[in-house]
């Protein structure tokens, strides 16, 4: 089976240059700007502040991961970025244009979080249909090859597996040869192998000088595929930096050990331990450096039993980073 990721850089550059010349003139240096974006929804439990005054600036050619737990506001941000929902306040500019202008110019391709394919067409027919509405699309054959869909190009869309459907949705997102590619949790429903191939095609597309924004729950995906990670929680940006910097923040570990009589003050004073807490007989140590902490712990408390060391869950890390998630005070993004 043909695998993706085989596009030559020369042809990519030629197409890219052709696209820019064939549509609006680009505003120099203008990438993606989100200025003070906010969006609330009404709900029976009162207003939900899905996105709270976020500012993001992304340069042309960057690949940015929007990382955050369920309900962080990632999809709402993406909806506003694409012009699918108007913000309550704030503005979006894509390459110096409004989202609508950018979309009409064929500069944007997106894979939304939820969505399936219309039926009664083959994969190739669907791609041909959608390519036809863009001013300067890629060739359908080229896209089929890039996304590893050649083997199932003749299959009807309603017969595809979940993972295959996702790949076709990716193909639809890139068929216009967009300057900005937006992917909302694109690897849901994919197995390990497909994920791997998927990110490979994404990176080869990004390598053409494209700007990519993708949402994910997984630090690992963000780390491996993005130049930059924007961490969201409760509608705010809680950290923004390189994957390594973000990992340093959220990658802290927790040591849990049964230690009935140890003193909390003493535990929190151990080298490498940031904070100590107690749940019944168990002591919970949040560690800045778990290697150092475990050595010190065993030396001081040889009686410690049932020891577990876990990576802090993203949700925990976010909670740690956002002191008071529901406060309406302007957000204090963590400087990295």
């Amino acid at each position, binding site marked *: 089976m043909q695998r993706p990721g085989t596009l030559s850089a020369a042809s990519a550059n030629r197409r890219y240059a052709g696209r820019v010349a064939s549509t609006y003139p680009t505003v120099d240096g203008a990438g993606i700007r989100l200025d003070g974006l906010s969006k609330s929804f009404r709900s029976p439990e009162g207003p939900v502040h899905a996105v709270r005054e976020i500012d993001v600036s992304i340069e042309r050619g960057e690949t940015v991961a929007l990382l955050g737990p369920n309900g962080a506001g990632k999809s709402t941000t993406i909806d506003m970025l694409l012009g*699918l929902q108007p913000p309550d306040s704030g503005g979006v500019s894509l390459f110096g244009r409004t989202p609508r202008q950018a979309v009409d*110019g*064929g500069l944007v391709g997106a894979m939304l979080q*939820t969505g399936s394919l219309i*039926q*009664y067409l083959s994969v190739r027919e669907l791609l041909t249909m959608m390519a*036809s*509405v863009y001013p300067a699309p890629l060739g359908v054959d080229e896209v089929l090859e890039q996304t590893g869909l050649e083997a199932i190009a003749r299959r009807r869309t309603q017969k595809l597996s979940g993972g295959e459907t996702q790949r076709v949705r990716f193909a639809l997102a890139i068929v*216009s040869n967009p300057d900005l590619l937006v992917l909302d949790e694109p690897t849901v429903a994919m197995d390990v192998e497909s994920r791997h191939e998927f990110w490979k095609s994404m990176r080869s597309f990004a390598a053409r000088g494209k700007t990519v924004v993708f949402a994910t729950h997984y630090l690992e995906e963000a780390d491996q595929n993005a130049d930059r990670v924007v961490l969201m929680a409760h509608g705010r940006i809680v950290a923004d930096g390189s994957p390594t910097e973000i990992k340093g923040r959220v990658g802290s570990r927790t040591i849990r050990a049964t230690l009935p009589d140890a003193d909390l003050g003493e535990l929190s004073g151990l080298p490498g331990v940031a904070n100590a807490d107690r749940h019944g007989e168990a002591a919970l140590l949040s560690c800045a450096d778990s290697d150092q902490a475990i050595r010190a712990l065993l030396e001081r408390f040889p009686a410690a039993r049932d020891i577990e060391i876990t990576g802090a869950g993203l949700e925990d890390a976010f909670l740690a980073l956002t002191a008071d998630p529901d406060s309406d005070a302007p957000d204090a993004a963590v400087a990295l």
Partner: protein
Amino acid sequence: MRGLVYTRYELLRAFRNRRFFFFSIGFPLLFYFVIASPNRGVHDFDRSGISLPLYYMVGLTAFGTMVAMISTGTRIASERQIGWTRQLRITPLSTRAYFRAKLLAAYMMSGLTIVLLGLAGSSLGVSLPAGHWLAMVGLILVALLPFAALGIMLGHLINVDSIGPATGGGASLLAFLGGTWFPLGSHGFLFELGRLLPSYWLVQAAHTGLTGHGWPVRGWVVIAVWSVVLSAGALYAFRRDTKRAG
């Protein structure tokens, strides 16, 4: 022109949807044969001077084409349900091209309904003067415009779980009030109400096949007004329909 490839595949999709095809086109046909076949010898139906197979051919043509137009809504509702409508909004496809493709697909179904019912009628001995038939088809196509808009509007307003009853009930009610199944007479409340509805004029358009008479001015006005109002409604429904499915 860019919209053409898009429209072509939209038509192909409608054509390949067998179940839709069966219910939209097969149903009026089946209905026709069930009613008209056993009564093919009735030459003076209800003392109208018209044979029963002819009377029901034009009646079911009105009903079948109307259902074909309104049921665009069903397909739109399911496209919304799977998030396709949102996906289309992040393409440069214009509202005009989107509406045109939906409209043409609906007209294709209606056209097939007209042709197949015509063939079914002639298999039961119905024959119409060519001029009458052409005038009928022409007027029907005009009278279907408001229903096309209604289908698109309902599709963008109503969710997939209630679109079936909404379009089915709407079509039946309009057909009933429009006098598809029995003549409305020439006075009284039902008659006055009917004359304000596009379905009445659709039935009158179909009756052109019987009489050769076109619409009076009132028919054109009613159809034009409903076309404008429902098109505006369809446009409004489409524009506001940007939320996630639910």
